C-alpha cells in the first residue's frame, strides 16, 4: 500500500517539475541573500502570486484542449481600467475592484464563447483578441499612469497577523477554488473534453458548455492575477501584462500539463509558475547582464521541459 502510494506520487504528471522546483530553490537560496527570511519570502510572493495565478488560468484552458494568448493583454486592460477609474474612497476601491474582476471574466468569456460555438483555432482567436485588448488598453491609457490609492497597493504589501502576507492569502483563496473545482462535475467534463472530445460528446457531455466553463474559470484566475498586478505595480499600464501570456503557457507545460489537453493538474501548473518566478529571481541575483538574461531564461526553460520529458520518454522506449 505504502509502496503504491509512493509510486503514484512519482508517476504524477507534476512530479518532474517538483524535482526541478527543489533544485531551483537550492540555487536561489545560495544566490539571494536571506532567501528564507520572512521579508524576502513576502517580497518574493508579491511577484510569484500573479505568475502562479496566470499559470492556473492558462492550465485551465489548456486542459480543455484550447489555449489563451490574450490573457496577458487582458490583465493590462484590467489594470488601465482600474487605474483610470479608481478613487480614494473605500467604496470606490471596492466597486472598481469588482469592476476589474468583471472585465477580466467578461474578456475570457468572450474568447470562450467564440472558441466553443464558432470553433476557430483558439490560438488564432485569442491572438486576435489579444491585440484588440491591447489596442483598447492603449486607447484608454497611452502612457502608464492613472491613480491607484495607497490604501490599495499598500495592502498588497501588508501581512495579516504579521505572518501571513496578503499575496499568500490570495494564493490560499486560489487553492480553495482549485479544491472546490476538483469536486465539480463540470470540471471532470473539462478533462474529458480535453482528453478526447469525440468520446466526451458520445458520452453525452455538453462540449460547448464545458469549453465556456473552462474560459470562465480561467477568467476568474486572470481576474485575481490582475488585482495582484495592480497591487504590485500601483499603476495602470497597457504593457504590464505582456510577459504573462507565454510565461503562463511555459509554466503550465513545465508543470506537466499536456499541450494537447486532458492531462495534468493545478498543482503542477502552480509549481510551474513558481519555477518561472524563481528563474527570474536567480537570473537577477546572479547578476547576469541583460543580454544573457533572456538567453539563460530560454535555456533553463528547455532544461525544465526536458526534466518533464524524461519519464515519458523512458515509458515510450520500454513500450516500443
Amino acid at each position: 500500500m505504502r509502496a503504491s502510494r509512493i509510486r503514484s506520487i512519482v508517476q504524477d504528471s507534476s512530479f518532474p517539475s517538483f524535482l526541478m522546483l527543489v533544485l531551483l530553490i537550492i540555487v536561489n537560496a545560495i544566490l539571494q541573500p536571506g532567501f528564507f527570511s520572512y521579508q524576502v519570502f513576502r517580497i518574493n510572493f508579491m511577484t510569484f502570486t500573479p505568475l502562479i495565478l496566470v499559470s492556473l488560468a492558462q492550465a485551465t484552458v489548456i486542459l480543455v484542449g484550447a489555449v489563451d494568448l490574450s490573457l496577458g493583454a487582458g490583465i493590462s486592460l484590467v489594470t488601465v481600467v482600474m487605474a483610470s477609474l479608481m478613487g480614494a474612497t473605500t467604496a470606490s476601491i471596492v466597486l472598481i475592484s469588482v469592476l476589474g474582476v468583471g472585465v477580466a471574466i467578461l474578456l475570457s468569456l468572450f474568447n470562450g464563447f467564440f472558441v466553443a460555438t464558432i470553433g476557430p483555432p483558439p490560438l488564432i482567436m485569442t491572438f486576435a483578441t489579444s491585440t484588440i485588448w491591447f489596442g483598447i488598453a492603449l486607447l484608454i491609457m497611452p502612457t502608464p499612469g492613472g491613480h491607484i490609492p495607497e490604501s490599495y497597493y499598500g495592502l498588497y504589501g501588508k501581512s495579516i497577523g504579521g505572518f501571513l502576507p496578503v499575496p499568500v492569502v490570495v494564493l490560499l483563496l486560489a487553492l480553495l477554488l482549485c479544491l472546490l473545482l476538483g469536486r465539480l462535475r463540470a470540471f471532470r467534463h473539462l478533462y474529458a473534453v480535453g482528453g478526447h472530445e469525440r468520446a466526451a460528446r458520445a458520452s453525452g457531455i455538453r462540449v460547448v458548455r464545458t469549453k465556456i466553463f473552462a474560459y470562465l474559470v480561467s477568467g476568474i484566475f486572470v481576474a485575481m492575477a490582475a488585482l495582484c498586478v495592480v497591487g504590485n505595480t500601483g499603476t495602470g499600464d497597457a504593457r504590464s501584462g505582456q510577459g504573462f501570456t507565454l510565461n503562463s503557457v511555459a509554466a503550465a507545460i513545465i508543470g506537466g500539463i499536456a499541450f494537447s489537453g486532458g492531462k495534468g493538474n493545478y498543482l503542477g501548473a502552480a509549481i510551474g509558475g513558481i519555477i518561472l518566478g524563481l528563474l527570474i529571481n536567480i537570473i537577477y541575483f546572479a547578476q547576469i547582464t541583460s543580454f544573457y538574461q533572456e538567453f539563460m531564461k530560454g535555456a533553463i526553460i528547455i532544461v525544465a521541459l526536458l526534466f518533464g520529458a524524461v519519464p515519458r520518454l523512458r515509458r515510450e522506449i520500454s513500450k516500443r
Partner: protein
Amino acid sequence: MSVLEARHIRKSFVGVRALSDANFTLNGGEICGLVGANGSGKTTFARIVSGLLVPDSGELALHGKPVNLRSHLDAEASRMAMVHQNLSLVPEMTIWENVVLGREGTGALRFLDNRGAMAIAEKAMAAIKVSLPVTERVKNISPDEKQLVEIAKALAKDPHILILDEPTASLDFNQVEALFEAVRALKARGVAIVFISHRLWEVAKICDRLVAFRNGETVGELDFSVQPREEKLIVPLITGQEAKARVRKPHDEREREIIALAGKSPALEMQDVSLPGGRLSNVSFSLRKGEVLGLGGLQGQGQEEILMILAGFLRGYSGTVRRNGSPVPLRNTRQGIRNGIALIPGDRQKEGLFPDHSVLANLLYPKLSMHRGAFFLPMVRNRALAASAIEQVSLLPPDPRLIVAQLSGGNQQKVVVGKWLSLDPEVLLLNDPTKGVDVGTRENIYAIISALTARGTSVLLYASDTEELVNNCDRVLIVFEGRIVKEISGGEISEEKIVVSSLNVEHTS
C-alpha cells in the same frame, strides 16, 4: 410488444445519402441482429436511434409512443445505451471515471460522489466478468479490455434497450463467450438488445432475429425461431447475391505450389527471438516463399509483437531475423520496408491512413518515403502506379482524387492494402486486416492476398477471427504467453483445433 419501432428513417450527410428507408422493430427481451455491408447505414441508424443524430425524416416510437429523439440526453432518459464502435472512452481517465462519464452522480453541495461512482463501475465490470482494477487509466489497458470497459459503461446505465455496435471486433473467442453470456443474462432480465456485427457466425449464434440493411434500406429479415441458424442464409441478404462459398485450394495442391516457388532458404526466419519482460520468449519459425502462415491464439499473447518486430517498430529484441537466409537488422520501420517487409495494420484509422488526404497520396506515401534518385518525383509514373494499385484492390469508385475519409470503411481498408502494392513487398504482415470489414470486402482482400501468394509473396497473418485463419492459412502457429506452443499444418487446421490449442490446456493437464 415492440419497445422500439423505426419507420422510413432517412438521413443524408452533405450530399451522401446514408439512410434512404430504414425500418426496424425491436421487441422486448429479444436480441435482434443488424447486419449489412460497410456503408449500408447500420452505424448511422444506431446513432439516430440512440439520439446522437437527428434524422431528416421518419418516425420513431419507443414503447409504442412516438418520440422525437433530439439529443443523446433524451435517449438516456428513455434508458437506452449504445456501445460505440469507435470507443467513447477518454484515455487519460481511469476506468471508473469513464464508466460514469457524463452521468456522474453528485452528493451534498453538488460535489462529485466518487466512492459511489467506483462502486457502480465495479458492479458493471463484474457483470461481464472482467477483473480489472477500476482505478487503472484507460490508456494503460489493451484494446480488447477497452472494448469491455465500453460495454460496462453502457451496462452501468441499467438500460432497457442496449445497442451493441460491433462489440466483438477486437475480442477473441473467449472474451466473446463471456460477452455473450452477459448479453443473454441481460436478455433474461428483459433488456432488448440490438447486435451489430460483421461476424456472421456470431449473429447466427446469439440473435433471435435479424434485420439486414443494404445501401441505406431495410432489405430483409430472418426469424431464427422458424429459420435455421445458418450463415449462408444471411450472406445473400447482405450482398444481394447468392452466397458463393470461396473454394479454398486443397492443402496438398497449395503445398505443391509452395514447394515449386521455394528458393534456397526460407523467405523469412525468426530464430530465438525474445522481448524483455517475457512478452516473447524464444520464438522461432520460418515462412516459406508464397506461404500463408497464421498466428493464432488468445488476444494479446504476443502475436502483434511478432509483427511489430518484423515491421521495425520494436527495438530491443534479442535473437535473429533472416530474410532469404541472411540476417537483417530491424531497428526502424525503414529497414523493414527496405527488406521487403510491409505491415498492413489493424487500426486503419490510426496507423494505416491519412484520412484527410487523397487516395492518390495515400497510395504513394510508402513509395515516396523510399524515393531515391532525382530531385523531382516522377509523378507521371507514380500516377500510373496508383492506378494499377486501385485496379488490383478494385477500389470503388476508382478515383484517385477522392479524400480517403469520404470512402466507406471497406474501401478504406482496400486503400490500406493497396498502398503497399507499389513497393511489391516480398513479405506481407497482416494485423487483423478485416476487423470491422464486411463480407464482400473481406473476400476481396483475401482474393488479393491469394493472388499475391501465387506470385511468391509470403504472408504472415494475425487474425482474431479463427475462421479467417482456417480459410486462408497453410500453417497456423499458436502463440501463448509469448511462446509458440503448437504448429498446425495443412488439413489438420480446423476451428476446433485452433481454439483448443489456444487455451494451451494440453500442457497443464
